[in-house]
């Protein structure tokens, strides 16, 4: 594994940049550090700027160690210049370097004059950057400068490539390894030592590229000088060869402390506190019970707590009630439902991409979801769940093709998902339309299971990570032999499949809609239909290698059998593709020293609880984007593995920490903190939760209790509603930013609020319908209180349809009005025409669910076409409600929406509102409407 670590030379955690108060006592200052390290330096090659200062040295620079990095430093291989895909001035270098072969060839290309070992000074790579030859990129260096001398000496030495093997950089050591500033505009120089596997070491400070992750906090010059700015913490990033090393930079809020890890505290809290101490931040206190209950319920189960639970939890005085609550929540069906939705997000469960995989539409994503849900319900270890996906086979052990198709046919019929969930593997993951090419698989696999974005490396060296284009190519090769096309089957099943097709009156050549239609119909009739299967086409690769070898042999050349290989990311040894590479891939994923697998999951789960990951964005683990608290991530990942990938352990560990339970109230030190978890950061709840919260809050207790058991109609479980346009919930979920699961990015899900979301909650027909539901809470409560319930019906159709309906009605009306204007005689003639005209409208209105009154009635009274606003029940409430009952009603409304009791003033406001209202049932509805529209309803706190 090629990993680059920042080496802490003196063992000191910090180097203070400037003038820290002498009493603080924990920071060595930069200069003393340098002195301490002199002994080490003597073995380290002096910087190139010294060695090549006068050009008199006999040293020949190395292409990989010196020339390529120097070209990077000079900006030659940047995207705007020769690093562009089309090159520049017909000269193209690989973007960000590291394609040494291609770069060397480009420089040496014949008749270009770029490198001329005879007439050295005339070489364009020397003449252009000093702008002696007109250079579009301007002057990049001076003649006679050390940079010039390096390039010159390299050319004079024969302009050699590095050799066939790329040199291995063992370590890039950056000092200081962490920087603590105590004021703005302080400066410190970085020093960088490269240690190569051949035992040499060299000061390469001047050959590195430097960037800052937040230049408002720490700016960095191109020579590696860091300047402090605003208060906060960030990283500056050093890049050299294929190494990328982040250096933490901190400017604390108040006097920082260096503290020992508090061994008695919760491990998460201890690590978080240590970082906060460095930053001089005091965390907010732990939140109150009702906040905790609502937060934990929504975060763990995606569901608002039921009203009885709110009341009993608030009344409970035992000290361990929070832990018990978490246990209770983890046992609820909604837990499995919600996390299966999250796992569906990360694994890319998308019906559209699975469109043709099964003979029936809208089933594949349901099967996928249910397969995950069943495993979460049984708390199957995370690595075992993933194994079922990664090494998935279509057929179970001992299942022949016929039985497989029989079982899958059953699985595809209504209710068959339970049966599918019992199957060992979930091969649908491999069958998606956007997961067919080896490159797509490499990118998608790394996204899902590693939380790594490697797509940059598809074309060039990853700018923020170690991955080279070669790494990417070798990794994607692993996926070549895996076949999972809709209609394809392995060799041994071909005959059976043909037979089965024949029995349905089809053959191999039937394709497209005809095939699909027949299969769907046959399936519906209870027949068994053929299914495609995932198979590993290793024989093919071996065969090809063998025939190649045989041909070479014929030509009299002695050759070894060259079986194609692929490589796991970061592994040196290739996997021969004469076997299923996924077995080794899976073994690597779950091995204890895998640097990504456990972390990716832990980090995503963490982000579910905190709104941001320890590494953020959660799917972008790379060297330049280190975790905000590495100790926490390491601890959780290590322990997660040690606990055999027990997901419930992970949930318990996180939710039992004070860090999770922090209040949202800020103090002077943590007001601006957004990345160190010193307080709860409010965020908008995910689309599914908002949808379900409205649903549950407006249901009667009895219905809601039933619903949270069966989860019927809830978006956290109804995966299909994510895609079906026909379901009305699809609109709400889209507006609130559910994940489209289509682009290998956790950002497919959005938690930003928007104007349309506010419009939705205030005035969408969904909301009005929920409030006016005859069997809903509002009406039930009104009946209980003896309030007259209005008979108004909320139009069932969304407003676009409604507008259409209104339009048609108006057209009908105008026709009738005109008809009525005609003299009696002409009316008789015109009646048939009118009838025909209205027939057309009435047909279209019927499509929208509206029935027109009979024509005669309409002619008599065109106002029948007015909207039924007037039919509103105007009966007044005679009953003066009992104030105790009213109070109870208001409390109930608060508990079911905000999971807490109203405060005194809130109660008074609500009471006054109801008492002042003429029509009490409208008042109850309005109260519920207002509560659904409070920020507190959709914002975490």
């Amino acid at each position, binding site marked *: 594994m090629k990993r680059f670590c920042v080496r802490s030379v003196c063992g000191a955690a910090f180097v203070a940049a400037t003038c820290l108060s002498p009493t603080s006592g924990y920071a060595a200052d930069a200069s003393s550090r340098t002195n301490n390290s002199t002994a080490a330096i003597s073995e380290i090659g002096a910087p190139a700027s010294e060695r090549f200062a006068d050009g008199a040295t006999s040293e020949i620079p190395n292409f990989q160690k010196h020339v390529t990095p120097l070209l990077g430093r000079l900006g030659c291989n940047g*995207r705007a210049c020769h690093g*562009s*895909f*089309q090159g520049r001035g017909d000269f193209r270098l690989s973007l960000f370097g590291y394609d040494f072969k291609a770069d060397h060839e480009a420089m040496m290309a014949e008749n270009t004059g770029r490198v001329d070992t005879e007439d050295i000074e005339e070489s364009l790579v020397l003449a252009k950057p000093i702008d002696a030859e007109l250079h579009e990129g301007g002057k990049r260096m001076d003649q006679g400068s050390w940079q010039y001398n390096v390039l010159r000496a390299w050319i004079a030495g024969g302009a050699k490539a590095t050799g066939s093997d790329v040199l291995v950089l063992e370590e890039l050591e950056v000092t200081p390894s962490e920087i603590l500033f105590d004021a703005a505009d302080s400066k410190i120089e970085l020093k960088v030592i490269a240690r190569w596997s051949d035992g040499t070491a060299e000061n390469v400070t001047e050959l590195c590229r430097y960037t800052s*992750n*937040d*230049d408002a*906090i720490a700016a960095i010059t191109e020579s590696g000088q860091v300047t402090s700015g*605003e208060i*906060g*913490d960030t990283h500056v*990033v050093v890049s050299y060869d294929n190494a990328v090393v982040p250096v933490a930079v901190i400017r604390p809020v108040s006097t920082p402390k260096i503290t020992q890890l508090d061994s008695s505290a919760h491990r998460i809290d201890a690590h978080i506190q240590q970082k906060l101490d460095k930053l001089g931040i005091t965390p907010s206190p732990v939140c109150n019970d009702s906040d905790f209950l609502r937060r934990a319920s929504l975060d763990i189960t995606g569901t608002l707590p039921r009203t009885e639970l709110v009341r009993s939890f608030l009344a409970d005085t035992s000290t361990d009630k929070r832990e018990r609550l978490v246990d209770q929540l983890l046992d609820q069906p909604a837990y499995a439902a919600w996390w299966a939705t999250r796992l569906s997000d990360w694994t890319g469960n998308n019906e*559209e991409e699975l469109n043709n995989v099964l003979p029936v539409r809208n089933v594949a994503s349901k099967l996928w979801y249910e397969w995950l849900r069943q495993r979460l319900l049984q708390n199957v270890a995370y690595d075992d769940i993933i194994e079922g996906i990664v090494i998935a086979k279509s057929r179970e052990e001992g299942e022949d093709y016929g039985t497989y198709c029989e079982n899958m046919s059953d699985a595809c019929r209504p209710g068959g998902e339970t049966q599918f969930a019992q199957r060992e593997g979930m091969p649908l993951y491999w069958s998606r339309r956007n997961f067919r090419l080896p490159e797509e698989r490499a990118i998608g696999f790394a996204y899902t299971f590693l939380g790594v974005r490697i797509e940059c490396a598809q074309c060039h060296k990853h700018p923020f990570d170690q991955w080279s284009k070669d790494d990417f190519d070798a990794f994607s090769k692993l996926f070549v032999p895996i076949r999972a096309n809709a209609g394809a089957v392995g060799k041994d099943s071909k005959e059976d499949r043909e037979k089965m097709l024949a029995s349905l009156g089809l053959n191999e050549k039937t394709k497209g809609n005809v095939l699909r239609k027949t299969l769907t119909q046959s399936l519906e009739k209870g027949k068994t239909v053929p299914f495609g299967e995932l198979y590993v086409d290793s024989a093919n690769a071996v065969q090809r290698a063998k025939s190649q070898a045989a041909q070479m042999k014929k030509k009299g050349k002695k050759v070894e059998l060259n079986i194609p290989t692929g490589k796991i990311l970061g592994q040196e040894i290739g996997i021969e593709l004469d076997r299923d590479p996924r077995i080794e891939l899976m073994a690597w994923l779950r091995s204890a020293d895998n640097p990504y697998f456990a972390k990716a999951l832990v980090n995503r789960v963490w982000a579910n609880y905190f709104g941001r990951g320890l590494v953020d*964005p959660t799917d*972008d683990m*790379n060297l*330049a*984007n280190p975790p905000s608290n590495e100790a926490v991530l390491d601890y959780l990942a290590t322990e997660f593995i040690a606990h055999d990938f027990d997901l419930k352990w992970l949930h318990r560990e996180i939710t039992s920490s004070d860090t999770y339970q922090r209040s949202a*109230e*800020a103090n002077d030190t943590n007001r*601006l903190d*957004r990345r*160190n978890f010193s307080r709860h950061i*409010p965020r*908008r709840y995910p689309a599914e939760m908002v949808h379900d919260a409205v649903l549950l809050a407006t249901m009667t207790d009895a219905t809601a209790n039933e619903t949270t058991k069966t989860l019927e109609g809830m978006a956290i479980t109804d995966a299909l509603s994510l895609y079906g346009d026909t379901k009305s919930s699809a*609109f709400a979920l*889209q*507006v609130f930013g559910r994940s489209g699961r289509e*682009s*290998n990015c956790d950002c497919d899900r959005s938690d*930003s*609020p*928007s*104007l349309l*979301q*506010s*419009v939705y909650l*205030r*005035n*969408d*027909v969904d909301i*009005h319908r929920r409030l*006016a539901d005859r069997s809903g809470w509002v009406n039930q409560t009104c009946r209980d209180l003896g309030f007259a319930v209005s008979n108004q*019906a*909320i139009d069932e159709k969304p*407003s*676009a349809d*409604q*507008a259409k309906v209104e*339009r048609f009605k108006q057209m009908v009306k105008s026709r009738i009005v005109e008809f009525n204007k005609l003299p009696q005689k002409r009316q008789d003639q015109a009646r048939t025409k009118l009838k025909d005209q209205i027939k057309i409208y009435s047909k279209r209105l019927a499509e929208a669910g509206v029935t027109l009154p009979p024509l005669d009635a309409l002619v008599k009274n065109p106002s029948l076409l007015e*909207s039924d*606003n007037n039919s509103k029940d105007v009966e007044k409430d005679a009953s003066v409600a009992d104030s105790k009952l009213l109070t109870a009603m208001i409390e109930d409304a608060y508990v079911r929406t905000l999971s807490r009791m109203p405060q005194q003033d*809130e109660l008074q*406001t609500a009471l006054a509102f109801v008492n002042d*209202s003429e029509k009490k049932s409208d008042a109850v509805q309005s109260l519920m409407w*207002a509560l659904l529209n*409070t*920020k507190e309803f959709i*914002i975490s*706190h």
Partner: protein
Amino acid sequence: MRFHKTCDGHSRRDMLKAGCLGLGGLTMSQYAKLAEAGQENVGKTGFGRAKRAIFIELPGGPSHMDTFDLKPDAPDTVRGKFKPIATNVAGIQISEHLPKLAAVTDKFAILRGVSHTLAAHQLGREYVNTGSRPIPSLEYPCFGSVLSKERPADDDIPSQVAVPKAGHGPGFLGIRYASLETNSTPQFGQPYAVRGLSLAAGIGVEEVQQRQQLLRKLDRRFAEFESAGSLIEGLDRFGEQAYSMITSPRARKAFDISQESDSFSKLFGEDPFGQSCMLALRLVESGVTLTSVQLGGWDTHQDNWTKLSTGLLPKLDAGLSGLLAGLELRGLLDSTAILVTGEFGRTPKINDRSAEGGRDHYPRCMFMLMAGGGVRGGQVIGESDDTASGPRHEGISPDDVAASFYWNLGIDPAMEYHSETGRPITLVRDGHVIEKLFA
């Protein structure tokens, strides 16, 4: 609903965000503006002629060489299949598949040799939507968000509408300046409404008002966290605005394209993009400050010419020419700034990824179109070299275009916003107003 997807996926803005905003970072719920924008510029050429704006985004990156920057004399390896045709302005030629635009070329300016270096969709889009090259520590706001802040519409009409989705968010201005996304596109000959903007049957305005009053009294939970940032602030703003829009008929009417006559609608072409352009016109007319419209699908790595000639160009041709003609007809062209752009051009060199060939991402040379307000139509600004591989002379940057767009709208591109911590941020960091546009 499906929107066009590009080859590197969408929503990738955070590729550069490694490390993210730290404590004290520029999340900026509160910021102060340094100077009232542009007082000193009033009266200068073209400044503030436009009051409202339409931003037409062509995500995917349209090929410049096959649209507005043809090179009929270039070698086969780059030229492409389309022929140039004359326009109603002598000396200006555009693609043969844009005949309607050729007939109204006097109404818009063509910018050629616009050039930048970001070849990834999301980064490129962020760049052309903001006019500032994306940087890791700060997310710049899109045009509409700046206008929402500087030229807010009346409360009962949104300041910024995106049909159907916004290409970029409000960045450091905070979500309260985000656009209203319609999430759908209007269809020819059908009534159109943004769901939720009409009052449902059975609910009167008075009732909504009472409810809103109750809500204001009860919704105080986060009052003490006022500094908690743009989330709370934004939600408050959206809530008030939603209320105004629901209770007034103005927004509803503006969205209802069926109020236009058939003959007028047909000017725009019958596909959803054309109808979106007509919707944009209605919205401008009703007081929306900026409307953005998208026509996606330009990521033509394969089958470039078939895709352009059979779908993309006819749609663009009808929609945009209809928009220019319609605005003129209504007397709005002089007060409406229009900017049309993709995130980059496409490689001059034709690839062999499909039988027909295609073109890949190419930011170094692209085109943009500007019209309306103080912009003088019927001119070409900038020039690309013989193979359209780069600007012939000094290129035009997206920053320059953004600066000019703001200038047209009376917003000084050099105005400064301030971060919470006092860091000054120039609206358009590196742009210069292209004076020729307004000459």
